[in-house]
């Protein structure tokens, strides 16, 4: 069945290979958009108008494009976190909680540490955020491997815990006590901690893309990556190979959490300028959709994140100008996830056969094996 071992290159072969990877996700998105249009129409809205405004709101001007990239950044990192965990055989739905901790600790370093030059302050805050995410991600990893608690539930629970804890911190010890402020939020981070934008394009976006590349390199070009993937595919064989499975599981979740954490750092240091509770409740689940759109490949996450980022960036405009409630995006994304995961349907529609490497079984029940 190794028909894929094309000996030489050739333009047609390359096109065929690209089509092979893109066909299913692309068709999934189109199908979802179609069904979304039907729902819009059935509830009295004009789908064409709505979609047009949506696109305008994402790519219409240089400014909106910049905003799309801004929205896409934490999505890239959330998708990376999920995809990375998948490769290690784990289901990390906790990206939201890990990101929240990253965001608030980055803010804390950002406003709490005085007298550092920008060249040190910003990277420091950035990395501390990642570290906080890593620690928070390591918890469910350790729970899974040492107690058998399944990470799907623990990460979701920890999301709720994170919301409450960061809420408390932003409303209590780390509250912005400047005159006139009653809202729960931290003080603004110092200028030296901020991550700037280059024109309309936020630097954070490049950092996210860089993270994707580094993640790819780590997974496929290093011994650690080999170990993580082996544990992900077959923990028994990994044990037999001498890999320390428990340590690898915890490390995988920690690295996954780190990726989500720096997403939080970028949000705080590059976009909002402080920590304010109540942003982006969908991050965890969007991350899953994005990871699957990209077939859990680190580089594949980027186009998916751009797509979802575009949709979310344009949604507000769509609500304002087309009168369509922005939750329709959630519905469409749920459908995208469905079609991507149920790729049997899509393949049947567009008659594409599955390559051998593409079968991804992600969960085998509650047991840690």
């Amino acid at each position: 069945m190794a028909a894929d071992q094309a000996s030489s290159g050739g333009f047609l072969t390359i096109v065929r290979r690209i089509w092979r990877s893109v066909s299913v996700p692309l068709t999934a998105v189109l199908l979802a958009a179609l069904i979304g249009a039907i729902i819009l129409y059935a509830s009295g809205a004009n789908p064409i108008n709505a979609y047009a405004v949506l696109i305008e709101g994402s790519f219409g001007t240089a400014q909106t494009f910049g905003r799309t990239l801004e929205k896409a950044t934490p999505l890239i990192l959330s998708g990376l976190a999920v995809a990375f965990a998948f490769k290690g055989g784990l289901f990390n739905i906790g990206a939201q909680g890990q990101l929240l901790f990253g965001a608030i600790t980055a803010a804390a370093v950002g406003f709490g540490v005085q007298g550092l030059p920008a060249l040190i302050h910003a990277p420091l805050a950035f990395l501390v955020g990642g570290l906080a995410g890593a620690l928070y991600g390591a918890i469910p990893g350790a729970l899974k491997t040492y107690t058998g608690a399944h990470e799907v539930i623990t990460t979701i629970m920890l999301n709720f815990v994170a919301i409450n804890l960061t809420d408390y911190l932003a409303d209590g010890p780390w509250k912005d006590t400047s005159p006139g402020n009653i809202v729960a939020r931290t003080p603004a981070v110092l200028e030296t901690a901020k991550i700037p934008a280059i024109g309309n394009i936020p630097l954070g976006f490049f950092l996210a893309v860089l993270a994707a590349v580094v993640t790819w390199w780590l997974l496929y070009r290093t011994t650690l990556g080999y170990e993580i993937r082996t544990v992900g595919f077959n923990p028994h064989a990994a044990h037999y190979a001498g890999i320390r499975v428990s340590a690898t599981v915890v490390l995988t979740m920690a690295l996954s959490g780190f990726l989500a954490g720096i997403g939080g750092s970028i949000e705080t240091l590059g976009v909002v300028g402080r920590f304010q509770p109540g942003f982006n409740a969908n991050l965890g689940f969007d991350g899953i959709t994005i990871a699957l759109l990209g077939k859990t490949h680190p580089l594949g996450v980027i186009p998916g994140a751009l797509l979802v980022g575009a949709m979310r960036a344009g949604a507000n405009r769509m609500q304002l100008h087309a009168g369509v409630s922005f939750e329709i995006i959630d519905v469409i994304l749920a459908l995208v996830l469905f079609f991507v995961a149920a790729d049997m349907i899509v393949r049947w529609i567009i008659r594409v056969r599955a390559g051998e490497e593409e079968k991804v079984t992600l969960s085998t029940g509650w047991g840690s094996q």
Partner: protein
Amino acid sequence: MATISTTGEASIGQRITEGLFKRVLFWLIAAIIVAIIIAYQQDARVTTAVLAATLRQSIPLILGALCGLLGERSGVINIGIEGQMLLAAFIGFMVNAWTGNLLLAVIAGVLAGGLLGAFLAFMSVTLKMDQIIGGTVINILAFGLTGYFYQVGVTTAGKLLPVPLGSLAELPLVGPVLFNNPPITYFTLLLVVVIHYVLFFTRWGLRTRAVGEHPSAADTVGINVYFMRYANVTIGGAIAGLAGVFLTLEAVGSFERGMTNGRGFVALAVMIFGKWTPFGAWGAALLFGLATAMQTQLQFFDVQVPHQFIGMLPYVLTIVVLAGFGGRARPPAASGQPYETG
């Protein structure tokens, strides 16, 4: 550790370990009853209020756990309980607001839950999708649909009110807590008994459990594995739907975006803690219900704990329970794995 307790038959070895477990359980329950009596002596009103709140908070968890365990007993993991509850809560609420008919609203909600259950079955059994992703699809879909169609300002036409059971409702403590409840609450308690009976004493239950433990054994004796899974997951969805209508039509009386608040996931912990049995789920749900009920009480007691920490309590408890039980509990052996016939 002893295997999943199947009432009916047991070998001698199993009987001994279960005997020990039963003894520990007996003393634990006795201790709890004593504690309740003492508390009642101290302050009757508060004790009654806490116990009533415990029962009320536990109902969606029991129903959610029953939904989850029906599915898992037949071999399908259901992460989508949260979404099933939410959509049913919304539809029940809307139907009630439009028609003013409570019964119709309850039925609509239950059907909505059942529909999502059938959808999950379709994804898991026919499409053989990863079951956790299937559940996630349901959750996101429910959040999106309920958020999209919700209009602020719609109110329900009435609520399901408590129905006192004659003179039983006059008894001290147990009267107001147990015998003066609205219909869904009574029904839930009845459902626990019914499902226990069906699962362990009927043909349907035997086949369901076989399909979840060793589907090919069931297949080779001519049982239709796909059908059993579809049926159990759909019925489970309907039960989750009941939990949803309970929230809007019996407990709260209105709808809010995301009002299920993680209960669907806590229900999974309840199911695991209860070892995939109905009575176990009931006991575990009461425990979680108590933790949530205590939240409101602690606020009255002027405790100097920030409200966010109290809000975290059920979620932290879930994690603790899973950590203590996650590895040692034995789910149905084939749970989570798609089945291929021949």
